[in-house]
């Protein structure tokens, strides 16, 4: 299946791209907010022009209940129908939606109290109550759903009164505010018939109501006329249609079949730029892609071998050739947005990586005891063009250095089962990605904490000092203390080369000129209507 970036990974290691978090202003690249005047008719289904938008995703949504869903396409639709206590603005500032103000933090981050705004109602008219919010945050744990892992730090959630909810956590957790963006569902309606709620008629408090859908074919949502908040959407109906194949998806943009197209392959970026009736709207997402080493077993357990591989190939060239412009080169094991927000020393980290020097690589490999003469490096890659190409570049580098490499492209099920076993028979290296919220914890804890070895940490990188820093930073609330611990940990990780950071992906859209006010969003993928924008179609 063709490359569609992290967004389609139904089973990206649990950390689906759903968390929204405050942080520093996003890099809004191309695409101005207000599109310039449309340049006249261009085929397409003019017809009921007015308020109808067609948006093409790479994969079809499969369910709509935020409590259970765990894949990005479903989340994109659900985000229009449901709302959360908080949302994050274009530049990732905390914006209350169902909440009426900022959360109160007590017991140094172990208790969070969220005030609710009383006049929010669900689409069936029922008011949004504190018990609905409590229900929405405890249901995943009780029903052991697939995304339960994202709320497992919560001990108890109780409604203090009609409009306030109190969250008690298992431990002091400074970063919990990033988790207050989970959608709220009407408890009574969902309990009646969970399956229907998930597959036929989800009811939320968001500006769009669910109309109809056929899996793999289309999903249709339409404006909720008497939406409690404002602005009421300009768009009357929005239709999501899945087009799996990259090039074809781009063509449906040109032919007018779709107004907006998601996930643009690198090579089609320029094609859209050259289109007279469409342009690219992209923003850097909160994602981090990397080459990881098996520090547990096999030749790559020796740091010198890892350093040799760093010499053997050029990550800059690989990213420049196979990822840009849909992604941005990254030198730290956290997304660029986050490095900026936390003012991490990225330049210093960039110098740690070596430039390509095949002779040096060969010397290091020949000299390293752990490397047999006929060593064949096993590199496993997920079914995704970009990461496969990176893997091939690494393999070619190793072959240039006089050894041989075997790049194996696995399906998601086999890959997920194999990449975190720590055994040299399964892999010496692998390329993967991670998406989280702009808090270093959501990356370093899951990717490097020894606690997570075999779960989401495939490196088995053992350095107690680094592990200590990560665990303490996770608990601390003081931002300065967390920042210095993270800098320590990251610097050591980079020097030991447990990972070679590669790139971060942008949320990229091809948008026809007739679409006004469409906004790409770092973590919510895109916004159709919000405090800052309200999409309309000429």
């Amino acid at each position, binding site marked *: *299946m*063709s*490359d569609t970036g992290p967004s389609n990974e139904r089973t990206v290691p649990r950390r689906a791209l759903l968390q929204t978090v405050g942080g520093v202003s996003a890099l809004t690249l191309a695409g101005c907010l207000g599109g310039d005047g449309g340049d006249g008719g261009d085929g397409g289904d003019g017809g009921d022009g007015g308020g109808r938008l067609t948006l093409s995703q790479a994969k079809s949504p499969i369910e709509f209940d935020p409590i259970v869903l765990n894949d990005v396409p479903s989340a994109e639709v659900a985000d229009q129908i449901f709302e959360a206590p908080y949302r994050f603005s274009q530049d990732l500032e905390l914006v209350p939606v169902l909440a009426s103000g900022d959360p109160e933090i007590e017991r140094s981050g172990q208790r969070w109290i969220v005030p609710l705004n009383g006049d929010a109602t669900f689409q069936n008219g029922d008011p949004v109550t504190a018990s609905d919010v409590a229900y929405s945050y405890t249901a995943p744990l009780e029903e052991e759903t697939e995304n339960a892992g994202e709320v497992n730090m919560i001990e108890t959630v109780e409604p203090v009164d009609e409009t306030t909810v109190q969250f008690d956590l298992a431990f002091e957790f400074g970063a919990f505010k990033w988790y207050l963006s989970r959608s709220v569902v009407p408890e009574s309606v969902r309990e009646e018939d969970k399956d229907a709620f998930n597959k036929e008629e989800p009811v939320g408090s968001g500006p769009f109501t669910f109309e109809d859908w056929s899996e793999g074919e289309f999903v249709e949502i339409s404006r909720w006329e008497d939406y409690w908040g404002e602005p009421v959407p300009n768009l009357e109906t929005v239709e999501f249609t899945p087009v799996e*194949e*990259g*090039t074809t998806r*781009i*063509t449906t943009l040109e032919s007018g079949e779709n107004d907006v197209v998601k996930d643009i*392959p690198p*090579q*089609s970026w*320029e*094609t859209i730029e050259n289109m007279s009736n469409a342009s690219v709207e992209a923003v850097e997402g909160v994602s981090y892609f990397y080459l990881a080493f098996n520090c547990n077993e096999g030749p790559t357990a020796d740091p010198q071998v890892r350093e040799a591989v760093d010499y053997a190939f050029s990550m800059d*060239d690989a990213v420049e*050739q*196979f990822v840009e412009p849909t992604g941005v080169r990254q030198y730290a094991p956290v997304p660029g947005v986050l490095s900026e927000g936390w003012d991490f020393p990225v330049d210093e980290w960039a110098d740690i990586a070596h430039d390509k020097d*095949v*002779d040096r690589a*060969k010397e290091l490999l020949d000299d390293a005891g752990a490397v047999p003469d006929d060593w064949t490096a096993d590199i496993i890659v997920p*079914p995704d*063009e970009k990461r*496969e*190409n990176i*893997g*091939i570049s690494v*393999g*070619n580098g190793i*072959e*240039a*250095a*006089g050894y041989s490499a*075997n*790049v*194996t*492209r*696995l*399906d998601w099920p*086999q890959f997920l089962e194999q990449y975190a076993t720590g055994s040299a028979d399964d892999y010496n290296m692998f390329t993967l990605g991670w998406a989280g919220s702009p808090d270093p914890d959501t990356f370093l804890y899951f990717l490097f904490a020894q606690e997570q070895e075999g779960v989401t940490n495939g490196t088995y990188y053992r350095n107690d000092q680094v592990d200590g820093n990560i665990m303490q930073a996770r608990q601390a609330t003081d931002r300065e203390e967390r920042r210095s611990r993270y800098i320590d940990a990251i610097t050591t990780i980079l020097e030991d080369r447990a990972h070679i950071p590669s790139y971060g992906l942008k949320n990229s859209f091809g948008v026809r000129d007739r679409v006004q006010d469409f906004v790409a969003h770092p973590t919510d993928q895109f916004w159709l209507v919000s405090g800052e924008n309200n999409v309309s179609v000429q």
Partner: protein
Amino acid sequence: MTVAGHTSDPESGADAGRGDVLAPGRDEGRTERERREDVEARYGWRYTLGQLRRDPTAAAGLVVVGLVTLVAAVAWVDAVLFDFLAEFGVFAGLGVEQYALAKAVWTSPVAEPAGTPRLLPPVGLENQFGEGTLAHPLGTDHRGRDILLRLVYGSRVAIQVGFVAAVVGMLGGTVVGAVSGYYGGRVDDVLMRFVETLYSIPFLVLVLSLVAVLGARENLTIIMFVVGVVYVPEFARLIRSRVFSVREEVYVEAARAAGVSTPAIIRRHVIPNSITPVLVQGTLRVGTAILTVAGLSFLGFGVNPPTPSWGRMLSISRDYMIQNVWFSIWPGLAILITVVGFNLFGDGLRDALDPRLKN
């Protein structure tokens, strides 16, 4: 008042050895040449090649098949030769960088010489990535590797796949068919029920699930065998029907009467006589096997990057169709020409080996 010849009763037919006696025998209605032709057909390779030479389409098919197999052989030898020479230190003098370049240019184009622009069009054409050069007559792929070189090495996979699958199918089918055909009775029923069941699962569905089962998504050897195994039912049915007809032949009865053991009969009578249709079907199946595995690698099963395979090239080229059309055209053509070659050769073989089917 028919004229009865001296030999055995009219029904069993004139004994050819006694010359053309007037008695109405089974072969009576055919000229001497036709009868010789029939005998020759079953055994005479000389005769077959003679026929093949005369039939233009078969000759064309033979040429194409020969060419592609030669290319595949060169590609295979090339890689082995390089390693062999490397062992003798022929390339010792080179620096690491030159060594990699030499290996890349000489052997399988896995490593791409740095700096070649990507997605170049064929020589003489131009696109946004640059102008087609003679160095890369058919253009370059999405990693800047030379497409012609990739096609040449792709032929190695295609031919290997085609032959292995066809041979596996033939051998399996012949054994199953011959045994069940000759022994008949319960053995036949059991085997045929199994063949029938395997045969009734649509071809690609069976291959897909077998490949998924064996976790062989990226293991070409297993896939080749699986494709071969899935051909077994077809060959089994072919052989079985042929065995039924041969079993009734007089000389087989005579052999059995003379106490020749059954396996010997199968080996010396039944199989040589059934080899003609199997050979023809085998040649045609090589072509279909190449098509099937191309389809499988198009769907992502089969060859592991960076080994070049035509199907995989096609599926990658889909993402670059707008930028460079030629990247999708060449692999398709390569598959087409090879399979046409095998089909032509197969048809030619059938006409030559089966005189009755002269159309």
